[in-house]
């Protein structure tokens, strides 16, 4: 297995390196210089968080309003979230302004390098500096090696990146810190100066690196944190004007870490929890809104009895669930969580008489990556003119669903997003014009009355 993998790693490294050496620097990038860059990579869970602090200076003649961020193609596929803040003010009175970030294609980009443009709030004049705080999150970036482990082994993973920050700009000074979950590091690439202190690796400082400098870096370390990945999550939010908001969430959960190999021994799992199945996980925590009620947790074959709910009327309610069996690498579990919420907490009337639903995007499970998230907002029957406001790009479409006693069906606003991480748990809004309650009451009423009449007819026959 190892022999097979090595050429693959070499191959991927060369693929990354070739464009770097063959680059032709973009004309626009000359005027910006990065004076100081500090990068902190957090590898403690399977969601890789990178905090990047850039001090940029405009050394050109004209003012610049955009800063480019460069990503190698391998990272772009895994990039789940990118956020840029501009820091203003001095140390203690620092305030942050969120900046717009948009993907950009450059015609003369070195092969396959991808860019994101940060639009500055105030254009940077010649000689001015600005501090940018950038956070980006990568998923599926820790590659288990060995690929298969037995129950008694712990899980080792690779993390690949560049010791030097990939940038279209000249970087005067840069440092990279990598935080790993434990002290156990099998190996790491040395790009001097490199230093290791406990569970932190320090690369740099490196001085005066030209644009598109790249130096591959590989860290092989132990990570036994749950690699819980929801391959598909469908959340259905059903608005009932009777005062309830019903949520149904269908999960396809998998352990995305090193695959389990060979036997599963219950004796070992029960008697030696510290040595056996350390990379497996059993507990999941879902954070549900306050005042949650009628919570259920089940799957295709029935109720799953291992769950605890700490409901709270003011704070976030916590639902602790266990899948039917502990999840080892490569094992899967599907389940459904459903709950009801008071409608008045989430549905509001806007000034123009339309209603809007304010609900949280993302996945309630803690520290979980969702590969594909679908949110279906089922509007009351007869609701018209739905529109959704989501703070990040999602795919949208409309569907129709028939539920209890529906005649024309309910409009469903479907929002789809790939690669969702916990930072996406922010509110979104769906606005719609409700119909008069009388209208759909009458439909229900007609059916109710006819059923009642039928019952009387039947009872009359006796």
């Amino acid at each position, binding site marked *: 297995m190892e022999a097979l993998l090595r050429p693959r790693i070499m191959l991927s490294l060369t693929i990354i390196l070739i464009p770097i050496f063959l680059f032709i620097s973009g004309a626009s990038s000359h005027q910006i210089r990065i004076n100081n860059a500090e990068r902190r990579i957090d590898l403690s869970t399977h969601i890789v968080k990178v905090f990047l602090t850039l001090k940029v200076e405009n050394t050109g003649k004209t003012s610049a309003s955009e800063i480019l961020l460069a990503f190698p193609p391998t990272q772009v596929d895994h990039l789940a979230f990118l956020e840029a803040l501009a820091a203003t003010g001095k140390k203690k009175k620092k305030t942050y302004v969120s900046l717009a970030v948009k993907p950009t294609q450059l015609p003369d980009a070195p092969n396959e390098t991808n860019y994101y443009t940060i639009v500055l709030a105030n254009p940077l004049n010649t000689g001015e500096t600005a501090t940018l705080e950038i956070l980006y999150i990568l998923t599926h970036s820790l590659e288990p090696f060995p690929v298969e482990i037995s129950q008694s082994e712990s899980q080792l993973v690779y993390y690949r990146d560049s010791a030097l920050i990939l940038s279209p700009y000249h970087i005067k000074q840069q440092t990279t810190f990598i935080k790993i979950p434990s002290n156990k590091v099998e190996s790491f690439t040395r790009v001097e100066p490199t230093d290791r202190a406990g569970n932190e690796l320090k690369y740099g400082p490196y001085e005066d690196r030209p644009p598109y400098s790249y130096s591959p870096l590989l860290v092989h370390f132990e990570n036994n944190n749950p690699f819980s990945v929801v391959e598909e999550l469908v959340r259905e939010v059903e608005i009932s004007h009777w005062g309830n908001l019903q949520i149904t969430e269908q999960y396809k959960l998998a352990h995305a870490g090193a695959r389990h190999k060979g036997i599963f021994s*219950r*004796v070992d799992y029960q008697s030696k929890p510290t040595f056996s199945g350390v990379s497996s996980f059993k507990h999941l925590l879902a954070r549900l809104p306050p005042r949650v009620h009628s919570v259920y947790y089940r799957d*295709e074959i029935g109720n799953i009895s291992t769950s605890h709910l700490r409901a709270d009327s003011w704070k976030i309610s916590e639902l602790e669930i266990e899948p039917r069996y502990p999840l080892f690498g*490569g094992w899967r579990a599907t389940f459904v969580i459903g709950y009801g919420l008071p409608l008045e907490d989430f549905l509001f009337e806007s000034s123009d008489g339309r209603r809007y639903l304010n609900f949280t995007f993302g996945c309630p499970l803690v520290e979980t990556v969702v590969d594909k998230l679908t949110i279906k907002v089922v509007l009351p029957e007869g609701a018209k003119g739905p529109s959704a406001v989501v703070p990040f790009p999602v795919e949208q479409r409309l569907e129709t669903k028939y539920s*209890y006693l529906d005649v024309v069906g309910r409009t469903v606003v479907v929002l789809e997003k790939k690669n969702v991480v916990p930072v996406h748990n922010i509110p979104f809004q769906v606005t719609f014009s409700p119909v008069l309650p009388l209208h759909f009451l009458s439909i229900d009423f007609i059916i109710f009355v006819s059923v009642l009449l039928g019952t009387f007819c039947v009872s009359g026959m*006796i």
Partner: protein
Amino acid sequence: MVGKTESQNGAVKATAAPAMNLESDLFSNFSFKSFKLKTKQQELLLRVSILGLVYILAFITRLFSVLRYESMIHEFDPYFNYRTTLFLTEKGFYEFWNWFDSESWYPLGRIIGGTLYPGLMVTAAFIYWTLRFLRFAVHIREVCVLTAPFFASNTTVVAYFFGKEIWDSGAGLVAAAFIAICPGYISRSVAGSYDNEGVAIFALLLTFYLFVKAVNTGSLAWALASAFGYFYMVSAWGGYVFIINLIPLYVLVLLITGRYSMRLYVAYNCMYVLGMLLAMQIRFVGFQHVQSGEHMAAMGVFFLMQVFYFLDWVKYMLSDTKLFQAFLRITVTSAVAVGALALGVGTASGYISPWTGRFYSLLDPTYAKDNIPIIASVSEHQPTAWSSFMFDFHILLFLFPAGLYFCFKKLSDATIFIVMYGLTSMYFAGVMVRLILVATPAVCLISAIAVSATIKNLTSLLRTKSKTAVAGSSKGTGGSKASSKASFDQSQPFQKNGAIALLLGAFYLLSKYATHCTWVTSEAYSSPSIVLAARGAHGNRVIFDDYREAYFWLRQNTPPDAKVMSWWDYGYQITAMGNRTVIVDNNTWNNTHIATVGRAMSSYEDEAYEIMRSLDVDYVLVVFGGVTGYSSDDINKFLWMVRIGGGVFPVIKEPDYLVNGDYRVDKGAAPKMLNCLMYKLSYYRFGELVTEYGKPPGYDRARGVEIGNKDIKLEHLEEAFTTSNWIVRIYKVKPPNNRW
């Protein structure tokens, strides 16, 4: 115990309704006098509301299982029914009818459409489609779970009409109330018990009712209805054989007792001919009505009816009785002779198939034990113990003979029928535990006659007294026994007190019955047997959900085409919940295949490995109760595997697994026992586990012994999964070793 008393209190509340119904029934009798004008309407209103209450009661008393556990399918066979229903609703009827299932009986497969009674599935699917059409967005599982209670409710209505037909509407109401809560019926019709019997008892009673109605009225319409009832019964359950034998027997008895009439002729002929033709449309039944020995009685009686009709006609034409007597003798003799000859020739030529083993085992309770171990191994096929009669019928067991007495006192075509139904079904109930179910409606009806007649007599006694003071000689109608003219004045207070005491006693008994029924329902018959519940050390409820844990693990973490070998009990559940192919399942149609699995389980590992390789087995699943003390596990069923395996493969010998006729798993166990596959798979690494404080490791709590072989090594299999309480253990069959 605390929990039990609690539920009993609840039980009293829940079943107060039938007792109340009776009281209000009684009350209505009193109040008739004061509101003479509206008596009829009042009586109707009372009857309808009582029946409505009984209808609801029958439904809600079956919901204990949903409240205690969840809305889920129970036990073994219902999982198959659920799976097929799901298939039917997803793929449609045509696909369902032609379904060849490759997921069971690997590598043989099973033609599902041709080997099942589709009535239940079609019923559930029809309800589901109707609800969907009415825009009730229900899940098919909920429909399946509630099908049995729904049909139980319908059965109460049929019981009412049946009781009304054979006695009076009072008896009908009491019968409806009885059958609504009778444990013998509830045991098979709680919510989640999605089995054929759930709708079949309704169909059975409906067919009988319609037939009796047809006999009473001589109406072609009722006979036609009963033929359709019979068709529904045939489509729903194999127990239709009971109908097709009981009705001819009944007709025969009527013929013998000289109660032949045109009504009977119309009813039977129409019902038999149409019912037979309709029944042939069910693929699983096919031409059995004309080819199988079990159905020949009906045909014989059919021809006998024609002979009777012919004789009647001749009698009408002939005025000479002596001549007719001679003719009668000749015709009957020759008819019987021709019939016997035809039967003999048919049987000898193989056109008429002989009786099946199951039928034999009903007539001769010891037959299965000697010849068909696979039937004998099922616990519900065991002869019934007295205690379970008591458990399932309670006071009905004593009311039954009383009811028979009333029936004999007022003999009619209808009461003869119910007497015959009661007696034959009681016999079958004694042969097999599960057939208590068939006897339940008869017992309820006959007991209802007893109760209704007694109470009616007593109340009329009470009422006549107040009248006799004025009117003098008017006596209670019906069978008021105690009214004698001579001691009229003296006996009055004694009679009154006696009647009141008897009435109170009756109500006491009936309320006891209601309490008992509710208690039995909630404690004994509402467990799904998939989820096991126990009381923890602190009195809290502990749930063992190991079955579903294992099945869901199979479903999620094994290749979709994996073949799972287990004892046949778990076959339906593995295919339905685990969605994996099984070697054998609860449809025990191929004894050899089951015996092969039994042989593999009782062989040494390397021999078993050969068998498993030949069956392409990927996983082996065993059920093991040693950790939890769950006693119906595979080790306790193991002797049946040996017996069934040995029945086909003589290399497996039962004495090899016994020590001096004792079955044991501890150190003194037989060496073959300690090294057979089942033992190894059950106890693999169990020797390292301490199950109970103060006991050595490897202490088997289900059997209460320390196991005899703690050092178990597996060569060809490896542990793939064991559930959290060790109830289900799954092993993976390793691929063969490389040869070099």
